């Protein structure tokens, strides 16, 4: 084995997948190079408006992550960069990177946009990549307002200077920061890394290739990604849905599904996200404009994930979205109106021709072209569809050792699954590079903090931002005004406050003038507050003795037409900031030591994978299993949908778990008691041998879900009616249920969605795949068996579509039935009879099967309720555990330090559950790897004198951070507190204050806003 040398990792691709992997790694002691092909990170998610299934704003979720990764001390972002080659061994790779010139120095650019405004192209002329070609940009542009890195970029393909060399280069002259540099050249360099994660994502399928829909020829035919931009408030129409042909608001909008997917002429697999994104887009469009009438044309509606069914139901019931199960053969443009004529067949079988104002093509995902090129260069294999090849048991491992893959590059998937895979890949890297942890990260050392005593001595820095602020606001007057404010001992104007030389200057001023508070009046604190806080920390001040006033985004940029009033407002804002600064207090951040062990609840597939991942990363793990043996559920599963043998997986896992020196297996054990908080949990485990107390820093819940046992369709009354799982076992063991002779398997009916009803409306995700698998396995044994599958929707998302096709090719007949008219099973003279209304044929069909197999779906373990109480983690209406954030924290619970995976989170196939278990382990490992946690800062605290123990705060805290202490009064666990301030606002006794947002600080700002007289009074 080669030596593990490098504690650095290259993450290639800066989409949500790459970002998540980078953050997880950087947070757990590895240095990360985040290599992105484009000019900014964010990937496709940055272009989305809302995200299903919760329909919350994509940018609201993504932007904090962008900022976080952008300023993470252990992440270096390399944009406009691609990988040339990879040499060496796992643990000791040299990766060669080619970085194209940006022609803008990102350390100087402040994204003011002056260069863009002054470019010789007066109008934006070139299709904007970010707006999916709907909007336009100039040769010099800022990729999008929230871009990281936030800086301009020159596109040499369209810039006149590069095309002809004859451009006056107005941009260059306009830049006050001298940030433009047209002499930059391409750089090629090599980096030492221990491992590589590839996350190059996907490309939307090129709708032009589906000629019958006229995309590119018909103005009002758009793609899903384009429509997404049309819906986005930051998009080309500022979020108004308007037709490209005439800028009018469309009324009837048709969505056509599966464009380029599930189609042997294009891509045979299902793109897995488009049913839901169309549903989302239809709802959002409808929310924008109630007059809109969206119609979705589809084959199968694949609403298989957590919360998907609910979204579809809302679309139908609350928003009146019309769903029509009929695919469109072609679109005809009406020459006069540019409306689009669409022909479909309704449920009654009649054909209709209908005009639509706009058509949205739900294009699928294809493997990204750049990603494929990358794969070639790195010598990793692709699967038959051109996505990265992985194995079912190692869903994030490529075919080259030390190179991991994640996100949409491994197959079509949505954001939660991308995030899960990203964390899983990070976990796998951690396990590989565990010995090199913390060898490449930089711990920064700060001087001893001065304790501010006596009167406030405030320094105010008023920024010009070149002319960005100074061009509108009279910054000199503002600074002069600041000198007269109480507590201010220093005020000055700075050309660029964020520039390196000024930061140095600022530190000097702090020392010279003995400042004990600093106010910067410049741009938004969302981007630079952390930088300034770090600076004052370097000068020996507590970083919370800082206040930032935004006189750019909130003043000069929005009031440029009223410079005088803008100046007045700037003064007010500075006055308020200074008032708050006077009341600022240093906030302590303590370190809390972490118990470097993990507790994993549930010794099934997920639990074992999670335990192994943690143990491989070097952490002691307690694996607690309620039953007498590990992996009992897995015993009953024959194969993964990919056809891999589940039993050999079980054997492998069992062996590895039992052998691993860092894993302690506790079978026949339950958790009796659990106390403490992130980093320091203490649990009592009870087993027949007695009770044992263990200390651990994290908890992973990896409990199960069961196959639902039905009471309909003669189940239990006739031995020829089985569940899928029983059928699989029979097939596997070759011993048909009692009463089943060989010859009696001539004809078989499978009924899908059994027991799925009002009370249990969700799709169980795996039963369709199970049915396909079982059908194929049976046909292998008995090729003459005639199998009929009665289904509502075939849920063969992603590559499972191939399985569906294979089943049809082998003669399985699939009959769609309506939810309202489910099949009927009866018995006549011992002959089983199934009648079902074939919804496509609109005719009753009678089948006389020898065997009936029911797909009954998955229900969570009732024991989850007890766990939920014990761990204080929530369950949803159906009894599944609820994650902290469905999109961005899919394997975290809201309570810190507790993670989840396994079937009791949501049903999934074996590879999906493996990734989820690895991800949970990876997330947990971040905490363990830190060794200690920071607690404090902007957190709430209870004034015990005032507390009346009314429990309001305990009830209201969304993060379970408040507890009642031994004195019977409320106390807040600083490690758990997220600093939202809800408790403080709700406390009737006003006993709670939130650091940095104390009532006195807020009220002072209010007072100062309305009473400027106070200034002169002092």
């Amino acid at each position, binding site marked *: 084995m080669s030596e593990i040398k490098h504690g650095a990792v290259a993450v290639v691709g800066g989409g949500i997948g790459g970002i998540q992997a980078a953050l997880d790694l950087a947070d757990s002691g590895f240095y990360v190079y985040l290599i992105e092909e484009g000019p900014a990170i964010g990937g496709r998610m940055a272009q989305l408006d809302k995200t299903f299934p919760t329909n919350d704003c994509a940018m609201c979720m993504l932007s904090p992550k962008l900022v976080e990764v952008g300023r993470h001390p252990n992440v270096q972002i390399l944009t406009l960069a691609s990988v040339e080659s990879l040499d060496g061994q796992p643990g000791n790779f040299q990766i060669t990177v080619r970085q194209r010139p940006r022609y803008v120095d990102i350390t100087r650019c402040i994204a003011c946009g002056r260069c863009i405004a002054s470019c010789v192209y007066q109008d934006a002329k070139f299709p904007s990549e970010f707006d999916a070609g709907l909007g336009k940009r100039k040769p010099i542009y800022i990729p999008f307002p929230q871009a990281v890195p936030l800086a301009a970029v020159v596109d040499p393909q369209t810039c006149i200077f590069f095309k002809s060399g004859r451009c006056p280069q107005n941009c260059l002259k306009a830049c006050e920061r001298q940030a433009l540099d047209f002499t930059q050249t391409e750089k090629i360099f090599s980096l030492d890394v221990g491992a590589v994660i590839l996350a190059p994502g996907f490309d939307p399928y090129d709708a032009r290739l589906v000629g019958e829909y006229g995309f590119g020829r018909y103005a009002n035919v758009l793609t899903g990604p384009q429509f997404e931009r049309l819906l986005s408030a930051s998009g080309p129409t500022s979020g108004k849905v308007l037709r490209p042909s005439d800028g009018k608001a469309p009324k009837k909008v048709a969505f056509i599904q599966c464009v380029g997917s599930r189609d042997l002429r294009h891509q045979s697999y299902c793109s897995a996200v488009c049913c839901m994104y169309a549903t989302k887009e239809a709802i959002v469009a409808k929310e924008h404009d109630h007059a809109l009438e969206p119609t979705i044309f589809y084959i199968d509606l694949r609403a298989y994930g957590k919360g998907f069914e609910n979204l579809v139901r809302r679309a139908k019931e609350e928003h009146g979205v019309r769903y029509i199960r009929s695919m469109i053969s072609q679109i005809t443009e009406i020459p006069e109106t540019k409306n689009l004529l669409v022909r479909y067949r309704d449920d009654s079988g009649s054909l209709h021709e209908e005009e639509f104002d706009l058509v949205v093509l739900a294009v699928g995902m294809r493997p990204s072209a750049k990603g494929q090129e990358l794969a070639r260069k790195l010598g990793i294999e692709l699967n038959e569809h051109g996505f990265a090849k992985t194995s079912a048991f190692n869903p994030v491992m490529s075919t080259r050792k030390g190179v991991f893959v994640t996100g949409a590059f491994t197959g079509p998937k949505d954001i939660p699954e991308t995030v899960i895979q990203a964390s899983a890949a990070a976990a796998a890297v951690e396990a590989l590079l565990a010995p090199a942890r913390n060898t490449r990260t930089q711990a920064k050392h700060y001087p001893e903090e001065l304790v501010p005593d006596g009167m406030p001595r405030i320094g105010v820095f008023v920024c010009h931002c070149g002319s960005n602020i100074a061009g509108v606001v009279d910054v000199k007057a503002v600074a002069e005004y600041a000198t007269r404010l109480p507590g201010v001992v220093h005020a000055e104007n700075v050309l660029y406050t964020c520039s390196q030389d000024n930061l140095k200057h600022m530190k000097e001023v702090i020392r010279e003038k003995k400042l004990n508070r600093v106010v910067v009046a410049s741009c938004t604190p969302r981007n630079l507050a952390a930088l300034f806080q770090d600076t004052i920390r370097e000068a020996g001040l507590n970083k919370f003795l800082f206040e930032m006033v935004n006189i750019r985004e909130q003043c000069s940029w929005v009031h440029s037409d009223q410079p005088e009033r803008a100046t007045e407002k700037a003064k007010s804002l500075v006055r308020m900031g200074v008032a708050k600064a006077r009341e600022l207090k240093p906030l302590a951040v303590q370190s809390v030591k972490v118990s470097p062990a993990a507790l994993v609840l549930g010794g099934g597939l997920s639990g074992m994978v999670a335990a192994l991942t943690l143990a491989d990363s070097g952490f002691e793990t307690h694996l607690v299993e309620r039953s007498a043996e590990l992996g009992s559920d897995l015993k009953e599963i024959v194969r993964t949908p990919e056809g891999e043998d589940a039993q050999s997986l079980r054997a492998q896992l069992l062996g590895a778990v039992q052998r691993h020196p860092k894993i302690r297996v506790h079978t026949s054990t339950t958790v009796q008691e659990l106390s403490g908080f992130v980093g320091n949990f203490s649990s009592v485990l009870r087993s027949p041998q007695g009770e044992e107390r263990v200390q651990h820093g994290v908890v992973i819940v990896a409990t199960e879900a069961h196959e639902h046992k039905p009471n309909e369709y003669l189940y239990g009354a006739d031995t020829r009616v089985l569940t899928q799982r029983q059928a699989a076992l029979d097939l596997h063991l070759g011993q048909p249920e009692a009463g089943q002779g060989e010859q009696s398997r001539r004809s078989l009916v499978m009924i899908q969605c059994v027991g799925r009803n009002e009370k249990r409306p969700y799709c169980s995700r795996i039963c369709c795949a199970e049915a396909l698998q079982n059908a194929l396995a049976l046909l292998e044994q008995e090729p003459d068996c005639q199998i009929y599958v009665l289904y509502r929707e075939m849920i063969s998302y992603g590559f499972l579509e191939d399985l569906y096709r294979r089943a049809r090719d082998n003669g399985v007949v699939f009959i769609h039935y309506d939810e309202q008219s489910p099949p009927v099973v009866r018995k006549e003279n011992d002959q089983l009879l199934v009648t079902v209304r074939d919804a496509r044929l609109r005719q009753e069909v009678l089948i006389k099967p020898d065997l009936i197999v029911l797909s009954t779906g998955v229900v969570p373990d009732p024991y989850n309720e007890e766990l939920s109480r014990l761990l204080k983690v929530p369950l949803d209406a159906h009894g599944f555990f609820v994650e902290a954030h469905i999109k961005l924290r899919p394997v975290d619970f809201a309570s810190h330090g507790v993670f989840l995976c396994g079937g009791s989170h949501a049903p999934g196939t074996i590879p999906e559950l493996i990734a989820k278990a690895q991800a949970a382990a990876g997330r947990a490992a971040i905490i363990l790897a830190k060794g200690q946690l920071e607690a404090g800062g902007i957190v709430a605290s209870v004034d015990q004198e005032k507390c009346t123990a009314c429990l309001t705060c305990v009830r209201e805290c969304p993060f379970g951070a408040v507890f009642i202490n031994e004195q019977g009064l409320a106390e807040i666990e600083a490690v758990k507190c997220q600093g939202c301030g*809800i408790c403080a606002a709700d406390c009737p006794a006003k006993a709670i204050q939130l650091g940095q947002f104390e*009532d006195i600080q807020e009220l002072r700002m209010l007072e100062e*806003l309305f009473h400027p007289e106070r200034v002169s009074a002092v």
Partner: protein
Amino acid sequence: MTNSEPKIVAFCCHYCAFAAADLAGVLRLKYPPNVHIIRLPCTGKLDALYLLKAFEAGADGVIVAGCLEGSCHFISGNLRAKKRVLAVKSLLAKLGIAPERLEFFNLSSAQGDRFAQLAREMTERIKNLPNPSPLRGRGEPGVRGSGDEKEARL
């Protein structure tokens, strides 16, 4: 200095409304300078008291702006804030202050245009109300004093 221009304070949550205000700036959208933003970690931090204090101190209008429903970074802070705003609105009516002076908005961080729009609308709305806020000016002597004094007054 003339004081005919109404003064409006906007309490914005860090993750959505404040970010939307930033975006309005980036997009150079114009709105009247009457609106002054105070940043909160979450609108859930908004104490009903702040609203009353704002009016007492002389605010002509108050905007509270949080994330879209269901998208609150802190899960439910915006819902709580909305409740408080509604409660204060009815209290204002009793105090003889037009409840229209106070409004709650939900917006996402991507809705820069909506922020500018609502800033314009509120300013317009307040300007159309008869005279400045009835409390404006009256509260002054008290405000001059310490915060505690005021607490006693309310």
